[in-house]
């Protein structure tokens, strides 16, 4: 722990366009990334620093992308960032009203074997639309930390920052088994032994 305070850990914020990555990023790092209400506001990456529990994180706000097969130059930036930072933790940001789209890119990221954490953002909008998201259930199924946030009001940001260090490499096989109702809790513990992420 003592020497890990010296090393910065890179955290890439990845997700669909217009889910509030930049707003979350500003909240966590106190930066001034431009935030708007249209897809494609962020077309280049922005870096910021977050210090949480004596660990310094370099948070990178990455342009939004619908998948990891880029359609345009902004999405190419996102895919390139993932490729160039193989040791990074990936913070996957969801729009709580469009969980399915977020999950799609989450699975793509998880397939790459990078440690992940999920932020289910825009919980206020989901609440207004009478959509409920079982974040605890999602966390159990995915086997990575899942935190509910509302970037505009700042709700859940504290917890999200605290949970970054618990980011996990997701095991797709185990996710499938859990979806089929199998209990993989024991396997999870054994799978956790070597990762050193905790």
């Amino acid at each position: 722990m003592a020497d890990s305070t010296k090393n910065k850990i890179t955290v890439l914020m990845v997700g669909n366009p217009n889910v509030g990555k930049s707003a979350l990023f500003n909240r966590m790092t106190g930066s001034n990334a431009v935030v708007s209400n249209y897809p494609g506001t962020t077309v280049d990456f922005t870096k910021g620093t977050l210090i949480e529990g004596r660990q310094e994180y370099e948070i990178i706000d990455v342009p939004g992308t619908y998948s990891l097969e880029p359609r345009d130059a902004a999405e190419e930036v996102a895919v390139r960032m993932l490729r160039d930072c193989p040791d990074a933790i990936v913070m996957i940001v969801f729009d709580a009203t469009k969980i399915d789209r977020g999950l799609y890119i989450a699975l793509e990221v998880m397939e790459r074997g990078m440690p992940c954490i999920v932020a289910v953002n825009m919980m206020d909008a989901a609440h207004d639309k009478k959509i409920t998201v079982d974040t605890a259930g999602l966390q159990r199924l995915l086997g990575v930390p899942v935190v509910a946030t509302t970037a505009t009001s700042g709700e859940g940001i504290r917890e999200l920052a605290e949970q970054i260090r618990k980011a996990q490499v997701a095991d797709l096989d185990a996710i499938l088994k859990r979806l089929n109702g199998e209990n993989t809790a024991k396997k999870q513990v054994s799978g956790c032994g070597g990762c050193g992420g905790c």
Partner: protein
Amino acid sequence: MVAVGGAEQMVLSSDAVLSSDARWEMVDRLTRQTVTYGTYKRTLGDVLGELTVKPLTGIPVAVAALFAFWSIFCSFAGALVTDGFMVKLFDAHWLPWLQSLWPDPASWHYFVFVGDPLADNCFEAFGVLTSGLFVSIGVVLPAILIFYLMMTVLEDSGYLPRLAVLVDSVLHRVGLHGYAIVPAILGLGCNVPAVTATRILETRKQRFIMMSLLAIFIPCGAQLGVMLEVIPDMVGMVFLCLIVGFCLFGYILNKVIPGENPEILVDVPPYHWPVKENVAKKLCNRTKGFLKEAVPFVLFGVLVVNLLYLGGVIQALAAFFEPLFVTWFGVPKETVGPLIAAFLRKDLAIAQLSVIPMTAYQMFASVVLISIYFPCVATFVVMLREGWKELIAALAVLFVVVFAYGGLIHAIGILLGVA
């Protein structure tokens, strides 16, 4: 179910291990277990959202919104702040004070910093501390303040993607798709972020067309602010000229350049009330950016132009380019000075035009020429960052356009008997 690649967790290659279908099936099962949808009542926002995206109701709304945007811009920046306050402050107090204070009106430093000792307004004096400060603080600052305030509202409310859907069919004719309206509107504020924003366009062809048209035909907020002061009656005509040029050359580029112009799927977000803090923050950052980067550039621009005048460089260039300027473009040879300034800052160039004695038509033609001529140096640098091949090609397009369109406007002027 497609098999998942064993128990290997460390798949570091970029090749996906799941097929897209398998992934969607997993997504489906995950959401079924974790997301529940309650009964949702449509809100006023949803109704407005639909009305503003359907052509029948959306187009009138779009016209009204853009017209309101423009009217507020003109009345606030032009009439209220600049004419009502800044002109009085600078012409009645700042200029006479400097003229009385600065020693030796015949010296070179008086010429560079204060300018013409006989000038009675800050446009004509053309010194670093007179016109330089007046243009940047008195004219451009209020213009970009109000422009960015309104643009932030457009951005944060969620109206831009709807506008994109509405203009999609028109922009398809010039080789772009509706989403190109986003860099276009950003460009009306400043071309620099707009060039980077072309990354949201899908193909290289679209990006190239947009970048070229942006650099050539879209005037920035600073330039608009000065145009409102210098040629308030002709701004509409200049705009029309630029829009016609945008469409004409977009149409040609679309035919000439190989590549695709695919249809788009626009993700239209629900309307939001702009968050006050976010609006304030953006406005503050953009204004700070202007004060830190643009103002020194304007002052530096005046300095360079004045030194070039003192060194006789501009007079020599004017004599050299006289045939081209007078016979081809139909503007006075002195326009060379502003054209040099235009490379640094276009707002400055337009301000400089006001000093040159010429007819209304010549004024109009030179303003258009300055708009479509070379992008300012800041835009040039970001274009270079997006790719040097594209930049060179865009410059080639630019030369052709300046000559062709500049000549065309002169020809029309001659036919109408005004040139």
